[in-house]
């Protein structure tokens, strides 16, 4: 019992040193050597939102570094942060940034170092509607109108407010059936946050992971919402954009134009958003500017962070985390998550990648 960790540590240290030398030799962006010199295991836990992406990344990382066993336990954001701060896992996924008291714990957990928070999973969400006979590619709506629809203040599709935003579109006089998530979810939290921040007071509720109104249609999970929206004409709901399928999606009003969902537009809003006040070079916490007027930005996105330490006790951990996160941030890793069959995420921009890579490179051991 007392011997194995020591032996394991020495072995890990050896492989770590070996890998470091290899990385130093190749001198490129440390995406791990193609032959894969690393070994050991790397455990992660956290948000369910990025689970599908992480599964894809683990598979992709295996091709690069077959010696490293990466695992991810999708216990939810809170559980992931808890396990990470307790030292049970080397990295975590979280839909929210670390809170102040958690930062202190992170200082301790990271051997006096700092927490690393990287916005590596950007997932656009779409407002989907079931209006099969609508002769427009995208219905155009402002945040205030979306808020009033979901707050049941606007009850028919041919409401003057909707008509005013969609000149020339023949709107049916159908009843609007708003559909929300019935389970607690980051999707709901980001959607209500958008409504609260961008609707100029039309949304009277606070942002929250569980839907504030009762007595309406709802579905369990993304699929449940989709099935419900597909189940009745006039229904409208919000889902991960990659799941929208054949349903119509809303183009949201940003500034003076209407922006339909696209992964570029989703990445653009992250770039256009300011960093949180306490963000640092390693804590790239983004305060999404839901009310943005940046051209071509799509403000309805969910960011899920990858959490790591800037300093690990074991060299092996540091090396593996660096290699894994470098892969995740690399164009290949981001492209893998962007595949609709994997997670349909929006790839991060090159500018953000440079910052992320600098933060990853600062991870050390000892």
């Amino acid at each position, binding site marked *: 019992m007392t011997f194995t960790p020591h032996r394991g540590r020495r072995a890990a240290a050896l492989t770590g040193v070996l890998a470091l030398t290899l990385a130093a030799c190749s001198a490129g962006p440390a995406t791990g050597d193609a032959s894969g010199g690393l070994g050991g295991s790397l455990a992660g836990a956290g948000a*369910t939102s990025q689970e599908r992406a992480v599964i894809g990344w683990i598979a992709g990382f295996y091709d690069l570094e077959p010696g490293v066993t990466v695992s991810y336990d999708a*216990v*939810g954001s*809170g*559980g992931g942060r*808890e396990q990470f701060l307790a030292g049970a896992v080397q990295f975590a996924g979280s839909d929210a940034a670390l809170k102040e008291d958690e930062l202190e714990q992170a200082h301790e957990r990271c051997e006096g170092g700092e927490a690393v928070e990287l916005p590596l999973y950007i997932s656009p969400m779409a407002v989907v509607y079931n209006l099969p006979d609508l002769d427009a590619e995208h219905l155009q709506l402002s945040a205030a109108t979306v808020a009033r629809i979901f707050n049941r203040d606007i009850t028919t599709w041919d409401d003057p407010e909707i008509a005013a935003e969609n000149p020339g579109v023949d709107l049916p006089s159908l*009843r609007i*059936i708003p559909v929300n998530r*019935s*389970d*607690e*979810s980051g999707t709901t939290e980001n959607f209500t946050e958008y409504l609260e921040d961008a609707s100029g007071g039309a949304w009277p509720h606070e942002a*929250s*992971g*569980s839907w504030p109104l*009762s*007595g*309406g*249609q*709802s*579905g*369990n999970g993304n699929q*449940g919402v989709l*099935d*419900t929206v597909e*189940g*009745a*004409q006039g*229904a409208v709901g919000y889902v991960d954009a990659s799941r929208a399928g054949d349903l119509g999606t809303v183009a949201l009003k940003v500034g003076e134009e209407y922006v339909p969902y696209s992964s570029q537009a989703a990445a653009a809003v992250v770039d256009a958003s300011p960093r949180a006040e306490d963000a640092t070079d390693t804590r790239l916490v983004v305060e999404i500017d839901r009310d943005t007027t940046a051209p071509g930005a799509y403000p309805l996105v969910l960011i899920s962070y990858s959490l790591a330490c800037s300093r690990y006790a074991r060299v092996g951990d540091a090396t593996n985390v660096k290699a894994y996160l470098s892969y995740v941030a690399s164009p290949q890793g981001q492209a893998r998550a962007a595949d609709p069959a994997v997670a349909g995420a929006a790839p991060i921009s090159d500018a953000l990648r440079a910052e992320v890579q600098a933060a990853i490179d600062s991870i050390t051991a000892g």
Partner: protein
Amino acid sequence: MPVTTTPPRGVPDPAPSRADAGAAVRAASTGRVASRVFAGLSTGAGLLILVTLAAVAAFLLIRAWPALSASPEELETVSWFTGGSVAEYVAPLVFGTLLASVLALLLAVPVSIGIALFISHYAPRRLAQGLGYLIDLLAAIPSVVYGLWGALWLIGQLDPVFTWLSSTLGFVPLVADYQAPAKNIMSASVVLAVMILPIITAVSREVFLQTPRLHEEASLALGATRWEMVRQAVLPFGRSGVISASMLGLGRALGETMAVLMVISPGFLFSFFLLRPGQHQTIAANIASKFPESSGLGVSVLIATGLALFVITFVVNLAARWIIARRAEYSGAN
């Protein structure tokens, strides 16, 4: 548990007395050992049930305790928590669970009795056998399949029915304000009814088949038609059996998770609007829906609701036992 290895002292059935065993059966000692082992095993199995039940109850109580003893302020920190106390949170769930199950029972029992009577007294022998197999087959379908069937197919079929009901009988609050798609408690109850139909039918059929031949013949001899014979002889005889069959079905309906989770648009209201969405939720479906993103006190609250469900099923089963025991003397069996 140590009782399993000792001779069955406490068991009130001392069949082979010590004198017999000592004198006559010494030669056949292997038989005696086997008998002892078997007695021990079956006692152990019986005890295991009690231990399991106690373990489940203890687990529920221990894990629910943080929620049961938490202050309203602490409970407020659970993001999806509504109401001031655990009791207030559970109450609408209990209501939804009971309403869905009772509706399902109301739909399923008459149909089940009809099918059971048809199989036992009306259908030609060969058809009855085939039909019996089919019913048993229905019972073997996993509930998640019923859930998928209900959510993806049945809801679409119920839509015109509910639309018609709500538009013609809309003045009755029960069926007022239907909103498509049909993700309401009525749809959930229909799925549940289909799920519990086989078990109620199978048990009822067995009971009806046991009606004493003499009762039936006596009734027919007095000039009764087949329907009158069924009413006079078969139904009174089978009543307690049908009740216990219904309770079995009710037990399954109370604890059903997937079918409800996939069909219903949940809500936390004490509402009798059966066709409105977002009014009701059952305990089991609520646990399944909330558990994945819960941690700490949230998990305790969910387990507390599970404790409530445990108590309800216990009470339902006790009630069923009581009814059956009370009715046994009237059953006409001799």
